[in-house]
């Protein structure tokens, strides 16, 4: 097990290099001159533009820019944004709130999704199953910006339970509604995955055996049905973490949470290479760690899966 973890951690190095190189190349490929855009429709002073290009190394060839970035990683100087702030500071502000939002979203989708999915899977074809299908259809068919808009309209403007603008330093309760919105689509996935897995496992031999042995239904359900049904669910949740953090552009915008999604989106739109790559690098690392944890969980959930 220890060797396995060590090996996985070592694999992070090539992934890190591959991912940053890929992202850097993509930012490099972004069309348009970010410096010209800084001037808007106003006259571009050629001298000033040249100064700025040099300042952000935009006049350098791609590989030189990339190597400068790598050097930055090791000296913890990731460069500045176009607004003159160190990228490190921007990250230090954006990540904490996004991580909290993501945690809320993951908990919401995991708890709700697994509970509802379990109940629906136990009574397949029943009214609860149909209701859960209807709810999942709703969150699937209505894009997140509409769900978020409606949630804010109802809870902030009409009921006034929450503030529309959550801000950078919210309490956990303020993050509940944004978290539900963010986790809504994934909730549908978790629900359906759990439901089908549970339905499948109910007929499995080890469950029949367990029931036949006279185990209490509750124990059969949690230990034998649910535990074995969780592998796809856990895998999904693991893959969802990165998506939730980077993909929260819309939810963050709707509730005015200055987090990773929005900052990353703006940086992409403005072709701020340094910011984009720095953010994505952290996301990659989070991602790798989460997936490693998921793989280790497999062994817990299904003893037949072993790592050497």
């Amino acid at each position, binding site marked *: 097990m220890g060797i396995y973890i060590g090996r996985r951690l070592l694999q992070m190095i090539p992934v890190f290099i591959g991912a940053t190189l890929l992202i850097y190349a993509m930012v490099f490929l972004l*069309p348009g001159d970010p410096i*010209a*855009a800084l001037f808007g429709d106003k006259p571009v002073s050629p*001298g000033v533009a040249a100064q*700025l290009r040099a300042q952000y190394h935009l006049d350098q060839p791609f590989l030189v820019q990339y190597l400068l970035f790598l050097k930055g990683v090791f000296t913890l100087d990731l460069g500045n944004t176009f607004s003159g702030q160190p990228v490190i500071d921007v990250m230090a502000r954006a990540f904490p709130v996004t991580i909290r939002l993501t945690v809320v979203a993951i908990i919401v989708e995991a708890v709700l999704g697994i509970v509802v999915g379990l109940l629906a899977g136990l009574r397949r074809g029943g009214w609860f199953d149909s209701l859960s299908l209807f709810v999942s259809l709703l969150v699937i068919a209505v894009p997140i910006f509409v769900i978020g808009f409606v949630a804010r309209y109802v809870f902030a403007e009409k009921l006034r339970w929450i503030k529309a*603008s959550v801000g950078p330093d919210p309490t956990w309760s303020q993050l509940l509604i944004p978290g539900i919105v963010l986790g809504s689509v994934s909730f549908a996935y978790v629900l359906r995955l759990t439901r089908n897995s549970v339905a499948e496992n109910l007929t499995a031999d080890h469950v029949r055996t367990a029931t036949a042995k006279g185990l209490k239904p509750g124990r059969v359900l949690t230990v034998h049905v649910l535990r074995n049904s969780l592998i796809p669910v856990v895998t999904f949740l693991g893959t969802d973490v990165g998506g939730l953090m980077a993909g929260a552009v819309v939810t963050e915008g709707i509730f005015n949470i200055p987090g990773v999604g929005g900052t990353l989106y703006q940086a992409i739109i403005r072709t701020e290479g340094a910011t984009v790559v720095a953010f994505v690098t952290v996301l990659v690392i989070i991602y790798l760690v989460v997936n490693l944890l998921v793989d280790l969980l497999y062994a817990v959930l299904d003893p037949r899966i072993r790592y050497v």
Partner: protein
Amino acid sequence: MSSFQPDEKPTRIGRVGGPVLSRRDGLRSALGAAALLALAACGGNDDEPSGDESTGGASSTEPVTAWGGEPQNPLVPTNTNETGGGKILDAIFAGLVFYQADGKPVNDLAESIETTDAQNYTIKIKADQKFSDGSPVTATSFVDAWNYGALVTNAQLNSYFFEPIVGYAEVSAEPPTAQTMSGLKVVDDNTFTVALTQPESDFPLRLGYSSFYPLPASAFTDIKAFGENPVGNGPYKLAETGAWKHNERIDLVVNDAYAGGRKAKNGGLSIVFYASLDTAYSDLTSGNLDTLDALPDSALATFESDLGDRAVNQPSAVFQSFTIPQGLEHFQGDEGKLRRQAISYAIDRASICKAVFQGTRTPAKDFTSPVIAGYSETIPGNEVLSFDAAKAKALWAQAEAISPYSGTFTIGYNSDGGHQTWVDATTASIRQTLGIQAEGAPYATFAQLRSDVTDRTIKGAFRTGWQADYPGLYNFLAPIYATGAGSNDGDYTNPEFDGLLKQAAAETDADASQKLLQQAQELLFKDLPAIPLWYSNATGGFGESVSDVKFGWNSVPIYDAITKQA
């Protein structure tokens, strides 16, 4: 970025003289554009406290909370060219002049600005003025700040504002052959002179723009630190070091050292940065925000009923158009003039303003803006801006006789800024009237659109807009349509037009100068280098706990005049 706001949502407009506005202020809503100009704000309650909430309410020292956006650049006046940072700079700095709500310049720090030839100016500033850190504001504070802004190695985005000054060519060359502009001379502590390379009669009018603000000596020792914690001389100052909380808000308190005409009547100003206008609107309606000077698309239809007499919808100095490059095939020469006019006649501006913008934009009648002194609705040739399907078809048919058109007429736009709806409506109007192919051409980012435009590689028309930096007609015309001008992205050139601009710039009599600029626009209506669409209105609203809210000529609330009730 830039004062032109690429990300501006298509949201800002008003129903001038329409049946809307406030129910209670019915009379005011019936006033036309000109009267609004004088009144300055349909939402303002200057002389009567708005009845429902505040009568008898004690005034509060709580800061006014205002909508804003995270500044895109350090808070250095010569490096800020977008509205998010601009509104903060205007609050913490005072220039030689400031603009009243109607755009009229009033001396702020200037004692006098004198010239006899519109080319050489002597500027006297008031004595004993101080920055908020106690250091004096002198002639040197201005001259040093302007020289800093112009010098190419400082890479300031607004450097082109100093272009008219003698010596700009030397400091903007790369590498610069001088460190300071020879046209700026300090005479004594309170006097300096400015020499321009040619007469520019509206130069004094420009001096209220943020690029011309003074800087304290401390700014130059560490401009980076200054950009984070600027020290100004305006009605407000930063509440503390680090008051600019990035992506969150900036807290300003009243600056007691300021003695000019914009003395704050409230306890402070907190500008809150929003990523989404929708959220800001929610906060306004639920009482968590005092002023909002833009609206989300989703609120356009309802904001006037939501906010009642706290809704604001008035013309402003933002002009929207699309430019058809001079080099575009079939749009050159006589054939081009016919096609340009046909397309202009084919656009149903009034219906688009109503359906898409819910009356928060005003169909264009010229190339400038109704809030600018010298604006005229009756410039000969402006009938080309009316919707006339028959005429459009006839003109297009004439052009077809010269050379048949094939292909698709496209309007390029950046799809990250909420422009799709009006581009779709406009191209559909052209398509359905002329029976040709017409489509929007979305660019993923503003940078991509601008690159294609500035490299002259764009293969169709493209959206253009102009938010005036200072309230003058000349600012809407010279930078965009003069031969070789910095923002002349369509490469329009007309010697007669250039001649009129030059005459107007040399004319020291404002009325005569405006007449010349109107004549110049007659030429534009013949050539249509750009197709005028509409003026963006200043739209927004304010909360129940504030009064005396007026929106200025530049669509930003005049924060210093706002009073807040406890």
